[in-house]
C-alpha cells in the first residue's frame, strides 16, 4: 500500500470515527428521551447538536429585569433567577434601571437585595425601602462600575490564587458572580500541597458567591482538592454560559458549544475522556474494560476463524451425506442461538471468562463456516482461499455480530468488559461512560474492517478490482 493510500485510509477512519461519535451521541440522546426514563443527563436541557438561540447572562438578566418590572406571578421566578445571576447580571441590570418607570425600578432594586447581602456591600436597613434601594444601587454603580471589568477581576483572582489575604477575598466577593470565569480558570492543575492551598482559597470564594456548599477542609489531600476542582469545573460546564456574555464570535461558537454534544466534546478535550457519573475518569473505565474485551475478541477471532475454515473443509470432504447434514445443522444452530443463555445454567462464576471465550470462539467458527459453505466462491477453491477472498464482506458483517456476542457474554457472565460497560452506561444515562466505551468498540470494529479489507487479495488484471 502506498503512503498516499495509507494516508487516505487513515483520514477515512478518522472521518468515520467523528461521524460515529455524532451517531452514538444521537443514539444516547434518543435513548434518553424514551418514555418513563428516570436517568436524565444533567445536560438534557440543552439541544443535542445545534443551539439556534444560545442564552447568556445578558439575555437572562434582561428577561428577569422585564419580568420583575411587569410584576405578577412570573416576577417571583425572575427574582430568584436574578439573585442567582448576581454580580454577573449587574452590568446589564443597573444601567437599564433608568429606562424603567419609578415603580418598576423600585421592584427591581428590591429584588437585588439578596445580591447586595451576598456581596457584603449593603445592610438590610439600607435596602428596606424601594426608593432607598434605588438610591443605593445607583450610587453603587457610580462608585463600583470600574471594578466590573474582566482585566481587573482576573488580576484580583491571580493575586488571591498566589497568596491569601482577607482583603483580596473581599474584593472578589464584592464583584460576586462576575468573578466566576476568572476563578474557574485559576483552579488549574492540582499536584502539590501549594495547589491544595490555592484550591482552598478559591473554593472559599466560589462557595460564597454561588451559595453552593462545596467543602475543602484545612487538612484536605491532593486527591480531595482535585475532586473539589473537578466539581467546580463540572458546575461551570453546566452553568458557565449563564454567567457569560455571548457576543460576536462567541455567540456563533455557542451555537455549537452550548449543546449536549459540545459539552461532551469539551469534557473530552479537558482530558481523560470526561468523567463518569461516579466521578471516575472515563479513560480509566475504558482501560479497565479494554483488557477483557480485546482478550475475548482476539482469542475468539484467532481461534474461531481457523476453526471455521477447518469446519468447512471437513464438511466439504466428508463422503457421508448424514455427516454433512449434521455438521450444517449444528453450524447453523450454533450461529443462530444465543448459547450464552444456556451455558450460564451450568457454568459457575469462576468459569465466566473461560465459558465466554469458548462461546465467542465457537460462535465465530459456526458463523464463518456457514458463510464460507454458502459462498459461491467456496464451491471451487479451498476454504482458506475462500476465506481470504470473502474477507472484505465478512469483515463488514462480522464485527457487529461478534461485538454483539461479546456484549451478551460480558453481561451474562458479569465480565468487566467494554460491552457491559457500554450497556450499563446507556441504560443509566451516563453519557461520558457510554461514549468512551462505545467509541472504543467502534474503533475496534473499524480496525477489524480495514484489516479484513487489507488482506483481501487483489486481482491485477481486473479494472474493477483496482477501481473499487
Amino acid at each position, binding site marked *: 500500500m502506498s503512503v498516499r493510500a495509507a494516508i487516505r485510509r487513515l483520514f477515512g477512519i478518522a472521518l*468515520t470515527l467523528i*461521524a*460515529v461519535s455524532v*451517531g*452514538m451521541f444521537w*443514539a444516547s440522546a*434518543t*435513548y434518553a*428521551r*424514551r418514555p418513563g426514563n428516570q436517568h436524565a443527563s444533567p445536560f438534557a436541557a440543552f439541544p443535542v447538536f445545534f443551539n439556534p438561540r444560545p442564552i447568556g447572562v445578558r439575555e437572562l438578566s434582561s428577561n428577569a429585569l422585564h419580568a420583575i418590572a411587569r410584576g405578577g406571578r412570573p416576577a417571583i421566578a425572575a427574582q430568584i433567577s436574578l439573585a442567582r445571576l448576581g454580580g454577573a447580571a449587574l452590568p446589564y441590570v443597573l444601567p437599564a434601571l433608568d429606562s424603567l418607570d419609578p415603580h418598576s425600578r423600585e421592584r427591581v432594586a428590591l429584588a437585588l437585595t439578596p445580591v447586595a447581602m451576598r456581596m457584603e456591600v449593603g445592610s438590610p436597613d439600607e435596602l428596606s425601602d424601594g426608593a432607598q434601594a434605588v438610591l443605593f444601587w445607583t450610587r453603587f454603580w457610580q462608585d463600583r462600575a470600574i471594578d466590573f471589568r474582566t482585566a481587573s477581576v482576573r488580576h484580583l483572582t491571580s493575586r488571591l490564587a498566589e497568596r491569601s489575604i482577607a482583603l483580596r477575598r473581599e474584593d472578589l466577593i464584592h464583584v460576586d458572580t462576575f468573578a466566576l470565569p476568572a476563578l474557574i480558570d485559576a483552579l488549574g492543575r492540582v499536584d502539590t500541597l501549594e495547589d491544595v492551598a490555592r484550591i482552598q482559597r478559591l473554593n472559599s470564594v466560589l462557595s460564597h458567591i454561588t451559595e453552593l456548599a462545596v467543602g475543602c477542609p484545612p487538612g484536605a489531600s491532593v486527591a480531595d482538592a482535585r475532586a473539589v476542582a473537578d466539581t467546580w469545573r463540572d458546575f461551570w460546564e453546566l452553568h458557565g454560559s449563564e454567567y457569560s456574555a455571548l457576543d460576536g464570535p462567541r455567540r456563533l461558537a455557542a451555537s455549537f458549544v452550548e449543546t449536549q454534544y459540545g459539552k461532551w466534546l469539551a469534557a473530552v478535550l479537558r482530558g481523560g475522556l470526561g468523567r463518569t457519573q461516579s466521578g471516575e475518569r472515563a479513560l480509566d473505565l475504558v482501560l479497565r474494560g479494554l483488557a477483557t474485551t480485546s482478550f475475548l475478541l482476539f482469542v475468539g477471532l484467532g481461534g474461531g476463524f481457523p476453526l471455521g475454515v477447518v469446519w468447512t473443509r471437513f*464438511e*466439504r470432504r*466428508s463422503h457421508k451425506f448424514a455427516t454433512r*447434514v449434521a*455438521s*450444517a*445443522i449444528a453450524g*447453523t*444452530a450454533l*450461529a*443462530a*442461538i*444465543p448459547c450464552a*443463555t*444456556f451455558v450460564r*445454567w451450568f457454568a459457575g462464576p469462576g468459569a465466566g471468562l473461560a465459558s465466554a471465550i469458548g462461546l465467542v470462539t465457537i460462535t465465530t467458527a459456526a458463523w464463518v463456516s*456457514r*458463510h464460507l*459453505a*454458502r*459462498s*459461491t466462491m467456496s*464451491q471451487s477453491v479451498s476454504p482458506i482461499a475462500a476465506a481470504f*477472498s*470473502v474477507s472484505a*464482506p465478512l469483515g*463488514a*458483517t462480522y*464485527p*457487529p455480530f461478534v*461485538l454483539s456476542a461479546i*456484549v*451478551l457474554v460480558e*453481561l451474562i457472565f458479569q465480565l468487566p468488559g467494554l*460491552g457491559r460497560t*457500554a*450497556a*450499563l452506561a*446507556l*441504560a443509566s444515562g451516563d453519557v461520558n461512560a457510554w461514549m468512551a466505551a*462505545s467509541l472504543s*468498540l*467502534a474503533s475496534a*470494529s473499524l480496525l477489524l474492517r480495514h484489516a479484513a479489507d487489507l488482506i483481501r487479495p487483489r*486481482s491485477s488484471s*481486473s*479494472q*474493477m*478490482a483496482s477501481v*473499487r
Partner: protein
Amino acid sequence: MNEPLSAKRRLMLAAAGAALLVVLAAALAPLSPGLQAYARGLAFAVLAGLSIMAVAFLVALPLGALAASGPRLIDWALRFACDLVGSLPTVFVAAVIWAGTSSTTSFVCALGVLRGLEQAWLLRCEIVRLEAEDAESVPRGLGRTPLVAFLRRRLSAALGPLFVSASFSVAWLTALDAAVSQAGLRPPNALETWGLLLGAPHPSPLPALLAAGSVAWLTVALHALFRPPGPGVAAP
C-alpha cells in the same frame, strides 16, 4: 440423495417446518403461561423475521447493485453508511431504534433497513469480486454491462452471500432481542417475544429451550430454502 431439491419443494419444506412449529405452539400454549409466551413469541418471530427479510431485500438489491455497477458516489455512500452502522454492536443500535420508534412495525422496518444495508454491502462485494474474477462471462457494450445480462447472470450469481445472511434473520432478531433484554435496554411496554424468554434474568427452562430450538429449526429451514444450486453443497 445428493441432488439439490427444486425451489418449489424447498419452499414447501420450509413452509411445512414453520407450520409444524405453529401446530406445536398451538398445542402447548394452554399448558402453562410460559408456553403461552412461547406461542406468542413464535408469531412475532415468524412475522417480524419475514418482514425484516422482505425489507432487507428491498433495500439491498437495488442499493448493492448500484454500488457495484453504478455511480461511485453510491458506492462511497454505502461504504460510509455500513461503516457507521457496523461500527457499533448491533445490540445497541437495536436498543436505540426500539426506544426511538413508536410502534413494533416501525421497529421491525428499521431493523429491516439496517439488515438491508449490511446485505447491500455483501451483494456489492460479491458482484465486484465476480467482475474481477470473470470479467468476460457477461457481454459488455462500450465498456458497460447491458442491464438484462447484468440482472440475469451477474446479479443472480452474486445472491449467495445475501441468502446466507437472510437465512439468519430470525436468529439475528431473537439474539438481538435477548441481548437487549439481558442488557436491561428493552422498552417496558414491548411485546412478549422469544428474546424476553431467553434474555430474562431467570428464564424458565422449557419455554427457553423450546424457543432456542425453534430459532435453530427456523434458521435451518431458511438455510435450506435459500440453498444455492451447485454440486458438493451440504444440506441444509
